[in-house]
C-alpha cells in the first residue's frame, strides 16, 4: 500500500469507533491469556494488564481518550445491564442469606460505612483535594454504581472508576494474607468481607478460592451496591465530609 493510502486509512480508523472497540477487546484477550499463564495471580489481573496496554497504545498513537471512548463505550455501556443482572446471583444466594441475615446485614452496614468514611478521612488528613476525597468515597462499590454515586455527590466519575479498579485489585491481592493473619478460616466470613471491600474483582478472586466464598462475595457485592447507593450520600453529608 502506498504511504499516502496508509496515512488516509489511519486517519479514518483513528476517528472511527471500530478502532477503540477492537483494541479494547484485543488488549483484554491478551491480558486474559497472560493472567491464565501466570496461574491467575491477582497482581496480573487482566484489568491491570489491559489498561496498561491500552494507555501505552493511546500514548504511542497520540489518540485522545475521547476518540478511544467513542468505540470503547459499547463495552462500557454493558455495565448497566450487568448491574441489573446481579439480581440473579443475589436471588440464588437467598437461602444462605435467610440463614445468616443478621451477621450479613450488620457486616454489610459496617463495611459500607467504614469503607467510605475511612477513605475520605485518611485522604483529607493527608491533604488531598476535596474532589479527590469525594471520588474516593465509593471506591469499594462495584464500578457502575460507584460512578453513579460519585456523580451524585460531586466527585469525578472517571477518577472513581480508576480508584474502584485499584481497590478491587488491592483487595484481591491482600485478602489471602490478611485472613491468614487474622486467623479467619470461615468461607462465608471471608466472602462477605471480600465482596464488601473489593466488589467484582474480589468476587472473581473469591470464586477461585472456593465456590462458597465466591457466592458470599457476590451476595455482599450486590447488597453493598444497593445499600451504598441509598446510604452513602446521606452518610457522608451527615459526617460533614462533602464540603
Amino acid at each position, binding site marked *: 500500500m502506498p504511504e499516502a493510502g496508509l496515512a488516509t486509512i489511519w486517519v479514518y480508523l483513528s476517528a472511527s469507533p471500530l478502532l477503540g472497540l477492537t483494541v479494547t477487546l484485543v*488488549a*483484554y484477550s491478551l491480558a486474559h491469556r497472560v493472567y491464565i499463564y501466570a496461574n491467575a495471580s491477582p497482581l496480573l489481573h487482566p*484489568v491491570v494488564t489491559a*489498561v496498561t496496554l491500552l494507555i501505552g497504545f493511546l*500514548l504511542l498513537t497520540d489518540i485522545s*481518550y475521547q476518540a478511544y471512548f467513542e468505540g*470503547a*463505550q459499547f*463495552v*462500557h455501556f454493558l*455495565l*448497566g*445491564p450487568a*448491574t*441489573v443482572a*446481579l*439480581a*440473579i*446471583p*443475589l436471588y440464588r444466594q437467598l437461602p444462605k442469606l435467610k440463614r445468616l441475615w*443478621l*451477621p450479613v446485614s*450488620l*457486616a454489610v452496614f*459496617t*463495611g459500607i460505612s*467504614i*469503607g467510605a468514611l*475511612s*477513605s475520605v478521612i*485518611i*485522604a483529607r488528613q*493527608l491533604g*488531598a483535594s476535596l474532589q*479527590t476525597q469525594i471520588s*474516593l468515597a465509593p*471506591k*469499594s462499590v462495584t464500578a457502575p*454504581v460507584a460512578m*453513579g454515586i460519585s456523580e*451524585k455527590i460531586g466527585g469525578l466519575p*472517571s477518577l472513581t472508576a*480508576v480508584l474502584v*479498579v485499584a481497590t478491587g485489585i*488491592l*483487595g484481591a491481592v*491482600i*485478602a489471602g494474607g*490478611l485472613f491468614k493473619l*487474622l486467623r479467619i478460616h*470461615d468461607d*462465608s*466470613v471471608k466472602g*462477605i*468481607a471480600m465482596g*464488601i*471491600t473489593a466488589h*467484582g474483582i474480589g468476587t*472473581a478472586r473469591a470464586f477461585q478460592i472456593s465456590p462458597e466464598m465466591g457466592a458470599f462475595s457476590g451476595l455482599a457485592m450486590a447488597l453493598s451496591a*444497593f445499600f451504598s447507593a441509598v446510604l452513602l450520600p446521606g452518610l457522608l453529608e451527615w459526617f460533614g465530609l462533602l464540603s
Partner: protein
Amino acid sequence: MRLINGLAILLVYQLLGEISVHFLQLSVPGPVLGMLLLFLTLLLRGGPTESMDTASSGLLSHLSLLFVPAGVGMIVHFHRIASEWLPIGVSLVLSTVITMAATAGVMLGVKHLVANRGGGDA
C-alpha cells in the same frame, strides 16, 4: 435467541429503573433500581428463566472486561494522580485493609453470637 431475549429483559429492567429514578427523583442509580425490580420479579415468579440466566451469566463472567474503558480513563487524570499520589495511595491501602478486617470481624462476631444463642430463628 436465548441470549438476545435475556439481554432484552435486562435492558427493559434497566430502562424501568432509569425512568423511575428520573420521575421519582431518587438518589439511586437507575441500574441499581433495575436490579431491585428484577430481584422482586424473581421472588414473585420463583426464579429466572433460562434466557435471563444465559444473559446474566454471560455478562457477569466477563465483568472485568467492562471495567477496562473506565480504567483507561486514568489517562485523563494523570496530573491529579501524580500530584496527589500519596494521599490517594495511603487512603486506598489503609482503607481497604481496615474495611476488610472490620467487615470480617463483625460478620464473625455476630455469627458466633447468633450460633451461641442456639441458632436464633434459623
